[in-house]
């Protein structure tokens, strides 16, 4: 498509409104008048007042914004994709993973690895499972592809550690058996987060 055609294309009827902006001063006198009017309008003082007001708000009205991070933590979205959790079946307490290997296959950074074997109950048993968090990009494909909702993302986002292995083995990710009652069911991808209502706020830039 040539540029002419591009300019002539049918873009439909537009209903833009033009703001009534004042025109820039043309003569020197006009400019001087503008300076004078700006000088004696207390516009600068408005800025000073805003900053002072916020200071008063912060110091005396308890509106300080800072979260003192390692001491205080903000609640994160339940859909947050941090360190994985391996869930258990609520009834039996047995881990849900069946060792199908789909997470291993779909993993785009090739960081999931597992070992399976034929166990005494003639079932496929996951004997080892590991995620290399040095490589994981937390894309969430593993959780999405899991047919058993066995691997999900958790909220543990503080992933600095002396050893990568500290949280990459099966047992570390598995819900501890004594905390089975605290295990949260995964809502699935795209589900509205439970605290969605709380997150709706008026735009804080009232001024």
């Amino acid at each position, binding site marked *: 498509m040539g540029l002419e055609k591009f300019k002539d294309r049918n873009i439909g009827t537009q209903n833009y409104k033009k703001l009534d902006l004042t025109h820039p001063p043309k003569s020197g006198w006009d400019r001087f008048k503008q300076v004078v009017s700006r000088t004696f309008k207390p516009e600068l003082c408005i800025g000073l007042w805003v900053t002072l007001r916020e200071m008063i708000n912060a110091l005396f009205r308890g509106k300080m914004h800072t979260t003192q991070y390692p001491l205080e933590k903000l609640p994160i979205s339940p859909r947050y994709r941090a360190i994985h959790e391996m869930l258990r079946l609520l009834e039996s307490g047995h881990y849900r993973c069946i*060792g*199908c290997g789909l997470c*291993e*296959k779909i993993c785009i950074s090739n960081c999931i690895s597992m070992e*399976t074997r*034929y166990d005494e109950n003639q079932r496929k048993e996951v004997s*080892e499972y590991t995620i290399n968090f040095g490589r994981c990009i937390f894309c969430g494909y593993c959780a999405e592809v899991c047919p058993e909702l066995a691997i999900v993302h958790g909220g543990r986002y503080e992933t600095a550690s002396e050893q990568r292995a500290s949280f990459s083995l099966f047992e570390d990710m598995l819900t501890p058996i004594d905390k089975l009652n605290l295990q949260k069911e995964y809502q699935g991808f795209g589900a509205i987060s439970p605290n969605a209502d709380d997150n709706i706020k008026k735009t804080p830039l009232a001024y």
Partner: protein
Amino acid sequence: MSEIELVKNMISITIDGKEYKAKEGEYILNAARANDIFIPAICYLTRCSPTLACRICLVEADGKQVYSCNARVKEGMEIVTTTPNILEERRAIMEVYDVNHPLQCGVCDQSGECELQNYTLELAVDSQSYSIPDTKRETKNWSSVLHYDAGLCIVCERCTTVCKDMIGDSAIKTTKRGGSALDKSLKGSMPKDAYAMWNKLQKSIIAPSNGTEHTNCSDCGECIAVCPVGALVSRDFQYTTNAWDLKKIPATCAHCSSGCQIYYETKPTSISDRREKIYRVTNEWNYVSLCGAGRFGYDFENREVKKDKEAFKRAIEAFKKAKVINFTSVITNEEALMLQTLKEKLGVKLINREARAFQIFLDFYKQYSGKSLYSLDFKEIMASDFVISLGTSLRNDNPNARYAFNNVQKMNKGAGLYFHPVGDTLVPTFGRNILTFAHKVGHEEAVLLLLIELFSNKDELPDIVKEQLDREKLVELLGGDSKFEASFSKIMKKKEKFSLIVGEDLYFHPKAKNIVKLITILEKTSPIKVAMIPPKTNSLGVALICDLDDEAKGYTIGYNALGDFKFSALGDGDLDAPAMNQQEGTLTNMHKRVTPTNVALEYNGYTLHDIVKELLNIPTKYTIDWTPKLPINKGFKSIDFDSLPNGYSNDGTENRGYLLTEITSEAKEIDVDKFDENIALDGDIAYRCNPQRQFSDFTNKAHQIFEEFALYASPKRAEALGKRVVVEFDSGNLELDVKIDERMDGDIVAVPDFKSDKNIYELFGASRYQKVIIREV
């Protein structure tokens, strides 16, 4: 069948409106496949008889609905692969297969390469119209390697078909399931073929055919290979990995002279050990069938080898002062050529007993027939309809020869003659038209005389042969019964193509030369063509490439064999060598084909190539740089390793490596010796013969091959011998456990030779049979 014949027999057919060529008398399915046309089929196996279990291969031929797997093409036939009715049938069939099939694809080993998955998706089954109460089907371990999950089984009968038609064990069969009966009203309402298929499926399940819980078979695992679903899986492989995680490495099996096409399937060993490990071996099961050694004997690699510079230095010294190199036939053509080069340059003697015997035999054959190679390959034997086996324990020596013998009986309405001193109870079960002769050891010449008498044109025979042809006497001498005449004329009916398999017994025969002469005469004067079984993996290649010596003394280097300095891939040598699954190179198999094999597992040590390079200062970089240098005057071709093909085309044509060229020369005058029946051995006889899945130290190293190094005997004989015996040879004694081989018959006992350190060849000397004294310990 030669090329010209093929072209002559081509007819034209029309498939879906397009014209194609097909071989006359071929099944429609195979003709379509050869022309790259897809017709769904679950139960059909290319080289076996159609089972008509799945009925999904329905097509319309000349307006009639037929099963393409068992309808043959005719000139001008018009075939339509899909009609609305056929599609309806196929979809109904797939729906029925999916009824009660456990939804455990997540853990199933077949997931990803499952034909049930594939066809369910291919035919877009997105809803289920049928249902029936399920029956509990137990999971069973049939043998030390076979695991059968009846719940997953769709009773396509491929396993039973391959076991019967190809392997010959017939160890499994369909049996009653005890499932609920179908609702009779379905008969009218659902598609006809789907109903018939379901009716049969609902009634049957697979079980060992001997009525017990366990199969009595050679544990070849071919049933595992052909199983379209996850019902049959090797016990060792079960649930250890997923199909898609495995890397397929095309290779040639290194255990016997069949040189079968295989894939080593590898994946890292474990989470902590990222080195590759072979998880299983698979094959193109439509075109090649493996034995138990090939399928399960894969982990014979030389592990944890590093470049040991000191050992390498010592090896160079050893090679410099060596007078003899003693080696086995488990070696590539390239390595054989290197050894031959060492002989030429350094003057060492090359010792390889099995290949030497074969080499002499081949030399005689060349002298008297004028051909450097035997006439038939084993594919051609499969195409014959009368097959004779002489001088080989068919069951043990070479699985592919046995499969061919069996396949001829099953597929070609064939017949067979089996001559062997050691009785075998399995061979007669291959077909009804098999006559077996347990002749005396040493009477192989008489067998050939009988064959000449039976098949040859008497006018062309030399007088000395004619004189000896006394049919009645020969039959009696060889242990045939009185009804021989009648049964022979019965099995000879309508037979056109005759083949003779000869084996190792003849190469190690004191009268080998005379035997070759008789074979040559037989070939010249009768329609019988001969095929030989090279004794070990690459014996044919070694026999062609190396200039072997009979006897040699002095400082010896053993390459995977005994010697003063051991260069060994078994991990016990003075310098480590790569095993065959860690090497690339070519092998010459009994089909007279030079096939490539590739590296499946890492090897970091020194190879023979490094030694030869150091010794002779040859500027090659890899072992495979020697591939194009293989001797052309022996039938090899000058082709680079990397341009060797390795696969099969859809019509079953083998595109692996290349075929050896036959070199013809002037034939010598034949002067036959007179047969002396007194050379027969009497008394206790030991036969040098390995158990079914053992071939060499390498099979023995594999963890799924359990057959022990023991004395094998028929049940009756074993009972008489006791638990453990000493076998006294002329040149030494051997103490062995006694094991029962249920398929052996007669009094001859088998002593295996797969352990090179036992030096069995030394005990047996120049013959495969020895008179021995057996004492119980």
